[in-house]
Each structure stands twice: as structure tokens, then as C-alpha cells.
């Protein structure tokens, strides 16, 4: 076919005064503002746009819109761009995809010669032997992958999202959809109207005669005057539970794309109809196009689609196409009328072009075949709402059956009619949608605490009293007396489907899976019904008996960038963080927290703590403020040990278990006042423990008077550790006697620190050194930290990070929940059995721990490699001698700067837990080393003298 630009058309959307230059396969081209990539290329005479997936057959324009399976191109770093939809921009670099070496000389087209062997599913039946060669076959097959290229340097550009709560969303801005939106808005609803194309109007845009033109102008004017929010080049991609909608805005002034997540009270589905290709020999040849494509090319972009045409028409739209062709100066050589039972049998010619059309045994020379064989109802959004559309053979398409009451269909999906009838149906649908939305809005408002009070009862659910649209008779045209392509994007023919059905893949789903029909870029929009028809034919059944497949989201493909949006990833920092950053910190991510790992030399930090004094920012330590008279009861229930006798000013360690007895968390809790406690949790467990506590209080013990407030970040927490810590703390703390007699280990005091009132501190220590943990109102955390650094300069104070703390806690043999324990570690395995009080009336996990008392459980023990220089990997397995029998594993391991040797914790089988037991540790390198179980968990200062000093 030969395409060219026509003279100015009254309906055209191009601006001929603005020329846009671009490249196509490296060559210079130009088009006009308003052109799609495809219309510009077509106007320039291009007629082959791609090669087909399997047989690399040349392909031209088929539908000239978003769904056109032949118009996928690469634009810069953007693969699989819909050239039938994407508007032309100046400077675009457009290339054909799936071609090698070039669009016009494609070597893989040789596949077409062996197509009889490459029947659907052929690959299941071969390449089995020899098995070792399959990877080689696979590599070759992978070169056949269709589609564009991903540029490894493509960035995630500014994609964005927003939420919306419209009363009514109308999907599709054809005449019925626009009327629905206008009527709903007139009834007071907040309305969003979403149009897939670049402008509203639907088929009116490319309909030439009056009164379509006048109607379009009228509808546009009404929309402009209304409060309806109109989104063009946008698609409702999915309808999810409770009318949660995904809407992608492909054109947005700020973002590359914006995903709108709308909770619509009512969804109106008005996508119109999609013209269906017809199956016959050569139906995928360039030059065979749908009637809508012909009309769009002529009327929207002023493109003459050919010189001499055959029109195969079975409906008024096909007739209109014939009229448009004649008006555009295309010679209509023959009209084959499908309503008279006539059929097109073949499109013939050389691979890249059309020469003649055979119909009823007559051969007509033509370079264009325009096909109007019927419609597919794009019922996707209704399917997603749970509806199962029903096939009507008289109308030759599917219709909605029983969608939920908050999803309404109108327009071509609902039936046929004159323009005024479709508009009236749309308006009635809009009014119904507004009424129902008002009922939903009333319910939401009445039940939402913060909302304005509503008066009156919820409005009754409006009955659907719309006059149904009629259904025009349409011949059932699916396949001619020849075989052809059913799925053009997958190169699946009607022959393939018949063969698959005969082999037993005779349900739609099996046939789809076996042949891959409908799996391509249009996701069945064009090919589903023809697929069903082919299977029905093979099975000798009707389309209604075979049924249809489930249309899955999204309605139209959308980019990963649009779905990802801004990628919010909250990060937490303590109020001391600016100091860390200014002082050479190496941070580590721990959940949401960015924490100091060390400041250059963790071993030196350890030595400084052991000899002088160090300070560490432990703000992420979970902290729960507990108030109320029933706190001891709560603590008794949560922890395995006893809490009734904890005096004011005292601190105690506790371990929490889940109901299955597995260790959940641990930490210390201090009593600040008669009815005021502070509980600490692990940093990673803070959020979970809070919910766990609330669950117990709210559901199991609602009568207990305890208020729990998370105060983790209300305080900056600083641990001051080392032999000189008392001296340092004494320099900044007012009004507290810090002597060991007055302020003993495991006690808590309220204090003013560096002029900051309302601080408290307790004597505990993960490091094993004399230490004071200060909890300072967070808005003064940096001040106190700096005061400590300043006050302790002569004492050699230095910061230390998590790594230093990890080393020191390991030297002291303190286990970490989640590292030295795992998802199956029962409390007794920690070696903390004295803290498990089975004589308590109740606590979380009590029964399991009572029964576990008789069980032989793995135990956490301290382990030292016999060679002090070897630090085993954390996770190195403990095995029996030279065998591969697993007896335990190393859970923590570090080189101890204090002891000058490797120190570990590990879990071992109970028979290996006694001090002095010799172990074999298998390193990642494969080497087996000897190691010894220690008498105590603590490698260093087992008596705890430094801590209590």
C-alpha cells in the first residue's frame, strides 16, 4: 500500500504549522504536532513497522491505536512504545524492534519457511535429548525474545502518585461516558473522567458526518463548563476490592507519569468497543487494517491509507469507512458485505505488501483491505469486579451480566443505539451513579469520627431503572474458510489453536497456556474472542459453551516507574546524628535506623572503653513509658521472671517469649515511680513489642489500668561506659550521689544532666564495664553528647559505635535475640533458666516452657577456637569430627581486642554444652578447626566485677 498525507481534513488533530523532526531507524523523518509516531511514519509512506515474534513476518498498521500489536517501537531508552498512540515529539529517536539485522532484511524471516514444524507448543516436543544440549538450545531460543531493549543506564525518573476519593469515576470519555460524567456532576457528585486517548470524544472524534461533529463540540463545551476532573491519555488500569482503582496518567506536567489511586464510590465503565480483526489467510499482511484504523488515519491525521481498497464490512462503521475512503480519494474497488454472508478468504501479495484480495472466489487487485467484522467488548474492569460477561450470538459479542451495584456499564459495552440513545443511557447511568455514590458517601461520613456530622438516614440504594440499550444484530464473523493469524503479537494462528484443542488442550485456559494466544502486548483486547471462537469450532461447540477467559489487570500495561512512584523509604536518625556525621562516622542501616557502626577503628574504640571511657548513642533502643497501678501484673505476664517486688529506683532484666515459648525480645525495665516504669526493648523489636503489649492489654486484660506510650525517640539515649565513666558522669550530673553505695548496679535515678532537667539514668551495661545509661529529652540530646565529650576530654573520652558494642557484649557473652537465638529457640536454650519462673500463675509461653523443662534443647554456649587467631564465620557449622553431622553452629564471632583472641557464642546440642567440651568447627573454607566450650558465657570478667564497681 502507499500511504500519503491528504489535504486538510475538517476533523484532523494535527497542527500543520508545526513540523516535528525525528529519526526512524536512523533516518530523518518529519511529522506534525498532533501526529502519533505511526501516523507521521504512515504519512511519510512507511508501511512496515515491525517483524512478528516467531516467523518475523513484516507487519504494518492494523488498528492505528494503543492496542495495535504491530506498532511497538523503541523510543530512546523506552522499549515497547505504542507508536499508534504515543504522540510525536521533536527529536525522537525511534527504532523498529525485533528485527535482525534490519527491519527490511530480517534473516529470521526464514522461520516462516519452516512454520509447519514450529506449530504451537513444538518446543515441548523436542530438545529433550541430549539433555546436556538444552542450555545451548535455550540460548538460541532466547535470541528470539521479542520486544525492545533495556538501556542499563536508564534512571528511575520522577514518577509520582496521588490518592483520590471521587464519588464517581467514569472510565472512557466517549459520548456515553461524557454524558455520565456530566449528569453525575450535575447531581452534585465529585467526578473524575478518564480517557485512554489524547482527547475526549471517543468515536465522535473520527466520525466525519454531522451530527457527530456538532455533538462532539457540544459535549466538549459542557465538560469545560463543568466541575468534572478530566484526565486524558490516562487509563483506569484496574478495579480492585471495594472500587479501589489504579489510574495511570501518562501525560503529566510535573511527573513522567502519575499513578492515581482512587477509592471511587461508584465506577462507570464506558470504554466503548474494540474492533476485532478477522481470521483469514494473509490477515496479518501489511495493508490489511481495521475500519476504525482507516477512519482514524484519514480523519484524525489526514493520512491516505492506500490507493485502491477492498472493504469487508458487516456493520455501519465499515460502511462509514468505505465512505471516508472514497472521500479521501481512495478507490474502493470492491465492497464485500458480511451481512449478505460474503466473506474475505485471502489477502495476497509479496511478503511486505498487499496485491489482491480474494473473496467469494473473486480476486480483486488492491493495496488496502479494510475490515469491519465486528467488535470485542473490553469488559476487563467488569471482570475485575467479579462479573462474568455473557456471549450473545445474535449480536456477536459479550455483554455484562451482573456486576456489583457500585460498578455500572454504559455505552457500547451496554448495547447499541443511535447517538442520542447512547447519550441518554450515559446520562441515566451518571444520575444513578451519583445517587448510589451519595448513599456510600453518607455511610462513610457517618462512620468516620473526624467527618462532619451527617443528618438523616442513609439514602436508599437507588434502583437501576435505566432503559436498556438495544442490541443490534451482527453476523458472527470470526474465521473465514481459510486459516489465518489469531494472535498477531504472539504469531498464533487458528491452525495452532485447532491443533491444540485436538491434542486435549481444549479449554480456553489450557489452549492459552499451550499456544500462548492472548499472552502478548494487547492482552486479548484484539484476539480473545477469536481464540475462543477457534476452540469452539474445534470442539464443535458454541462460543457461549466454551466461555471466555478471565481478563486480568492491568487494563493497559503501565511502567514499573509509574507503579513505583516516589518510593518512600522512611529513615530514622537520633538527635545526635549531626555530630556523628561531622566526626567521621561509618553508619549501618538497622531497620529504619541509620546508626553509627564505628568511627574508623572499632578495636581502638573497644580498648578505650576498657581503659578510659566511651560514649555510644543508643537512642534506637526501644523504650515504652508505662503508667498505672497494674504494671507489675503486666510485667509478670510479659516476662518469664517475677516483677511484683521491684522497688522504686530499681532496674531488672527480663526475657519475653511468644506463646510457643520461643524467645521474642529482652531488655531491662526500671521503676521510676510508684506507678511509673520505663521498659526497654531491643531496637528491632520496639514496634513489635509495643503492639504485643497493646494486644495483651486490649484483648486479654482490658480491666488492667496501664497506659503504654512509645517514647523511643522522645529520649536520646547515651551509654557512658568504662572505668572512668563515674568520673565523667559526675562532671555533668547535678544532684545525684553517684557513689557505688548510693547508686548501685541495676538502679535508676532521675537527674539533671548538663543543665537538662527530666533526664534519668540507670546503671546497666551491655559492655561489661561500669556504665551509666543516660536518657535525655531528645531535643537536648546533642547538647548532652557534646557536653560529655567536652567534660571528658582529659579522661580520654571517645565515641564508640555498634561494632565496638557488639565486640564487647560478645566478650561478655551476652546473647542478642535474633542473632544468637532464632525462630525456634526456646527460652531455656539461652541458659537463662533461673529467670524462667514456672511457678508463676501465668505468663506468655508458660505452658510450652513448663513442658520444655523435660526436653533436651540446644544451648547457647561461649566457645573459643583453639587457634586464637582464627575467627570462624558467623554461621560456621559445628560438626561431629570428620563427619558431616551437624551438632550446632557459631552464632557470633569476633576477634577480641581485650583478650587478643577469637571469641564466639554458639548453639550446640545439649551433650556438648558442658564447659571444656571439645568441638569441631567447619569453616567456610572447608577447614575443620578445634574449639572449646567455656565454663561461662562471659569470656571476660565472668564475675562481673568491673560492671558492679
Amino acid at each position, binding site marked *: 500500500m502507499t500511504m500519503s498525507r491528504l489535504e486538510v481534513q475538517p476533523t484532523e488533530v494535527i497542527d500543520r504549522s508545526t513540523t516535528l523532526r525525528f529519526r526512524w531507524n536512523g533516518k530523518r523523518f518529519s511529522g506534525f504536532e498532533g501526529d502519533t509516531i505511526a501516523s507521521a511514519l504512515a504519512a511519510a509512506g512507511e508501511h512496515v513497522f515491525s517483524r512478528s515474534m516467531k516467523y518475523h513476518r513484516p507487519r504494518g498498521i492494523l488498528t492505528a491505536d494503543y492496542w495495535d500489536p504491530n506498532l511497538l517501537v523503541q523510543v530512546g531508552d523506552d522499549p515497547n512504545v505504542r507508536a499508534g498512540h504515543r504522540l510525536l515529539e521533536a527529536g525522537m529517536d525511534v527504532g523498529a524492534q525485533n528485527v535482525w539485522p534490519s527491519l527490511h532484511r530480517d534473516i529470521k524471516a526464514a522461520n516462516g519457511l519452516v512454520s509447519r514444524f514450529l506449530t504451537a507448543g513444538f518446543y515441548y516436543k523436542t530438545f529433550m535429548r541430549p539433555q546436556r544440549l538444552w542450555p545451548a538450545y535455550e540460548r538460541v531460543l532466547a535470541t528470539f525474545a521479542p520486544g525492545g531493549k533495556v538501556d542499563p543506564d536508564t534512571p528511575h525518573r520522577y514518577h509520582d502518585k496521588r490518592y483520590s476519593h471521587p464519588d464517581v469515576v467514569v472510565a472512557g470519555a466517549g459520548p456515553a461516558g461524557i454524558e455520565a460524567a456530566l449528569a453525575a456532576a450535575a447531581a452534585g457528585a465529585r467526578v473524575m473522567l478518564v480517557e485512554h486517548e489524547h482527547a475526549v470524544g471517543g468515536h465522535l472524534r473520527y466520525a466525519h458526518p454531522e451530527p457527530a461533529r456538532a455533538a462532539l463540540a457540544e459535549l466538549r463545551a459542557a465538560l469545560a463548563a463543568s466541575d468534572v476532573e478530566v484526565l486524558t491519555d490516562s487509563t483506569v488500569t484496574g478495579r480492585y476490592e471495594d472500587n479501589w482503582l489504579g489510574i495511570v496518567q501518562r501525560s503529566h506536567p510535573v511527573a513522567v507519569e502519575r499513578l492515581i489511586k482512587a477509592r471511587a464510590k461508584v465506577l462507570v465503565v464506558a470504554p466503548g468497543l474494540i474492533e476485532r480483526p478477522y481470521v483469514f489467510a494473509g490477515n496479518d499482511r501489511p495493508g490489511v487494517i481495521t475500519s476504525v484504523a482507516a477512519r482514524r488515519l484519514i480523519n484524525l491525521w489526514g493520512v491516505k491509507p492506500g490507493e485502491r481498497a477492498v472493504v469487508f464490512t458487516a456493520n455501519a462503521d465499515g460502511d462509514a469507512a468505505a465512505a471516508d475512503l472514497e472521500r479521501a480519494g481512495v478507490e474502493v474497488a470492491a465492497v464485500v458485505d458480511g451481512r449478505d454472508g460474503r466473506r474475505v478468504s485471502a489477502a495476497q501479495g509479496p511478503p511486505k505488501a498487499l496485491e489482491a484480495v480474494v473473496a467469494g472466489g473473486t480476486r480483486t487487485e488492491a493495496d488496502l483491505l479494510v475490515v469491519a467484522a465486528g467488535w470485542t467488548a473490553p469488559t476487563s474492569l467488569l471482570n475485575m469486579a467479579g462479573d462474568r460477561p455473557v456471549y450473545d450470538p445474535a449480536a456477536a459479542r459479550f455483554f455484562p451480566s451482573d456486576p456489583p451495584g457500585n460498578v455500572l456499564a454504559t455505552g457500547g459495552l451496554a448495547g447499541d443505539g443511535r447517538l442520542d440513545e447512547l447519550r441518554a443511557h450515559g446520562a441515566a447511568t451518571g444520575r444513578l451513579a451519583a445517587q448510589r455514590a451519595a448513599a456510600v*458517601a453518607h455511610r462513610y461520613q457517618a462512620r468516620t469520627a*473526624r467527618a462532619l456530622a451527617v443528618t438523616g438516614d442513609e439514602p436508599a440504594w437507588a434502583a437501576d431503572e435505566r432503559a436498556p440499550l438495544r442490541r443490534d444484530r451482527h453476523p458472527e464473523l470470526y474465521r473465514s474458510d481459510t486459516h489465518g493469524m489469531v494472535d498477531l503479537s504472539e504469531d498464533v494462528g487458528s491452525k495452532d489453536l485447532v491443533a491444540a484443542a485436538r491434542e486435549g488442550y481444549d479449554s480456553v485456559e489450557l489452549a492459552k497456556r499451550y499456544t500462548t494466544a492472548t499472552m502478548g502486548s494487547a492482552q486479548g483486547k484484539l484476539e480473545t474472542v477469536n481464540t475462543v471462537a477457534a476452540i469452539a469450532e474445534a470442539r464443535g461447540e458454541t462460543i457461549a459453551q466454551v466461555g471466555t477467559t478471565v481478563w486480568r489487570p492491568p487494563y493497559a500495561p503501565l511502567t514499573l516507574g509509574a507503579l513505583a512512584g516516589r518510593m*518512600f523509604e522512611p529513615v530514622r536518625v537520633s538527635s545526635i546524628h549531626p555530630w556523628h556525621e561531622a566526626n567521621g562516622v561509618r553508619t549501618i542501616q538497622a531497620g529504619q*535506623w541509620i546508626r553509627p557502626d564505628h568511627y574508623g577503628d572499632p578495636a581502638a574504640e573497644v580498648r578505650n572503653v576498657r581503659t578510659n571511657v566511651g560514649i555510644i548513642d543508643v537512642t534506637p533502643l526501644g523504650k515504652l513509658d508505662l503508667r498505672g497501678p497494674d504494671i507489675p501484673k503486666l510485667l509478670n505476664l510479659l516476662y518469664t521472671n517475677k516483677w511484683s517486688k521491684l522497688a522504686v529506683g530499681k532496674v531488672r532484666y527480663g526475657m519475653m517469649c511468644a506463646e510457643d515459648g520461643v524467645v521474642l525480645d529482652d531488655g531491662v525495665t526500671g521503676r521510676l515511680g510508684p506507678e511509673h516504669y520505663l521498659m526497654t526493648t531491643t531496637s528491632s523489636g520496639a514496634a513489635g513489642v509495643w503492639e504485643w503489649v497493646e494486644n495483651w492489654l486490649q484483648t486479654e486484660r482490658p480491666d488492667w489500668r496501664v497506659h503504654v506510650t512509645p517514647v523511643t525517640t522522645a529520649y536520646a539515649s547515651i551509654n557512658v561506659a568504662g572505668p572512668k565513666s563515674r568520673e565523667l558522669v559526675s562532671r555533668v550530673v547535678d544532684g545525684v550521689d553517684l557513689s557505688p553505695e548510693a547508686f548501685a548496679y541495676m538502679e535508676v535515678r532521675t537527674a539533671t544532666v*548538663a543543665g537538662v532537667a527530666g533526664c534519668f539514668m540507670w546503671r546497666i551495661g551491655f559492655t561489661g564495664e561500669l556504665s551509666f545509661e543516660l536518657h535525655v529529652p531528645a531535643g*537536648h540530646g546533642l*547538647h548532652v553528647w557534646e557536653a560529655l565529650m567536652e567534660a571528658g576530654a582529659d579522661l580520654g573520652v571517645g565515641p564508640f559505635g555498634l561494632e565496638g558494642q557488639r565486640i564487647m557484649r560478645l566478650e561478655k557473652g551476652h546473647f542478642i535475640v535474633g542473632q544468637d537465638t532464632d525462630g525456634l529457640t526456646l527460652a531455656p536454650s539461652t541458659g537463662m533458666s533461673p529467670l524462667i519462673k514456672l511457678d508463676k500463675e501465668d505468663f506468655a509461653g508458660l505452658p510450652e516452657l513448663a513442658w520444655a523443662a523435660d526436653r533436651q534443647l540446644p544451648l547457647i554456649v561461649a566457645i573459643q577456637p583453639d587457634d586464637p587467631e582464627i575467627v570462624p564465620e558467623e554461621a560456621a557449622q559445628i560438626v561431629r569430627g570428620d563427619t558431616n553431622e551437624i551438632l550446632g553452629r557459631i552464632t557470633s564471632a569476633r576477634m577480641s581486642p581485650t583478650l587478643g583472641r577469637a571469641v564466639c557464642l554458639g548453639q550446640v546440642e545439649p551433650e556438648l554444652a558442658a564447659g571444656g567440651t571439645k568441638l569441631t568447627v567447619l569453616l567456610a573454607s572447608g577447614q575443620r578447626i578445634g574449639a572449646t566450650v567455656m565454663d561461662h558465657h562471659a569470656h571476660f570478667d565472668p564475675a562481673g566485677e568491673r560492671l558492679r564497681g
Partner: protein
Amino acid sequence: MADPPIFESPVVRSYETAGSGDLMLTDISATTKWLVRASGSVGAVAARLGAPFGSSSAAAGGALVLGSRPGEWIVLGTADAVAEAVEGLEAVDGADFVSALDWTHGRALFRITGRSAPRMLEKVCSLDWSDPMTPDGAVASASVAKVTCDIARNDAGGTPSYLVFCDRSLGQYLFDALIDAGDEFGLVVGPAGG
């Protein structure tokens, strides 16, 4: 000992913005804020504070009381006003059990003011910001840019204005996220303070 230290805001990095000023984001984290909770029979406390769950009210001394959760209130304002509002609450007759704690240091607090504030907020929060669902005075908790926040609508002279509270440690993150969301509406950062 040094002078009484000044309050350090969680927002340590702010930005030059080129907006029109129609939409303003202000860091007011230093504002005094208390959390009041009551359980059992909460009627007496509610009668004293006003502000049932979901709404807000002004206390006599000028503090703002937000009914942030069932049986929970956030009281904010100047230190004196807040002190006056929460004074003696724990001993209110007829309440089963009441507690009050100073949450000033635990929560970052931002104010967003401007006609386009609802449109900015709908980019980062799934609540319905329309007048019927979130009128002036409304209080709710919700996720903002993946951070759980307390939010109160507190209009300023007829212009929509919102208070947003989050965990202090997330303050800088949320501040940045709000600036990003407001950029297309010409957001400017207002002077930090109360």
C-alpha cells in the same frame, strides 16, 4: 553548668525554595505537647478537655486539644497554656484512670498551610481531605509518606492548614518528603518556630 540548653529541632537541614508562598511548610517541633490518656470511664476527662475522638477544641488558656484516639488527647500550645490545660487532670473526679506525659521531645510537628495543601497531602496520605470528610477541626491518624502521623486540620483565617505530628526520629525524613510533595504547588519553607 552551662546555660539552659535550647531545643534542638529534628529538622537540621532545610531548603531554599522558590515557591510563591501560597503553600507553606513550617517546622514547629518545639511547641509544647502533652499526651493525655484516660481509660475506664473517660467521660469526666472528656468533659474537661472537650474534643471527642476525631475533633479538636480550644482550652480556656489557649492550648489546642486534639481528640487523637479513643481515650487519648494531644494538648499543645505554649508551655504555660498546656500546663494549665493538663493541670490536675489525673485527679479528675469520676475518671477511672488518667495519665499525662510531656511528649514535646517525642514528636516532630509541622504545619502546612495553603489552598493547595489538601492536594499536596493527597500525594502522600490516603485520607479523604474533602471538607465533609476532613473539616476544619478534624483529627485523625494515618500514614503520611509511609510514616504514621497524627494530623489535625486547624485552618488559619479561612485557609486550610494542617498540623502533622510524627516520631521525632523520622522528622527530617518527613520534612523532606513533604517538601518534595509540595514542590509542584510552589511550596515554601516557613521560619521554624512556634
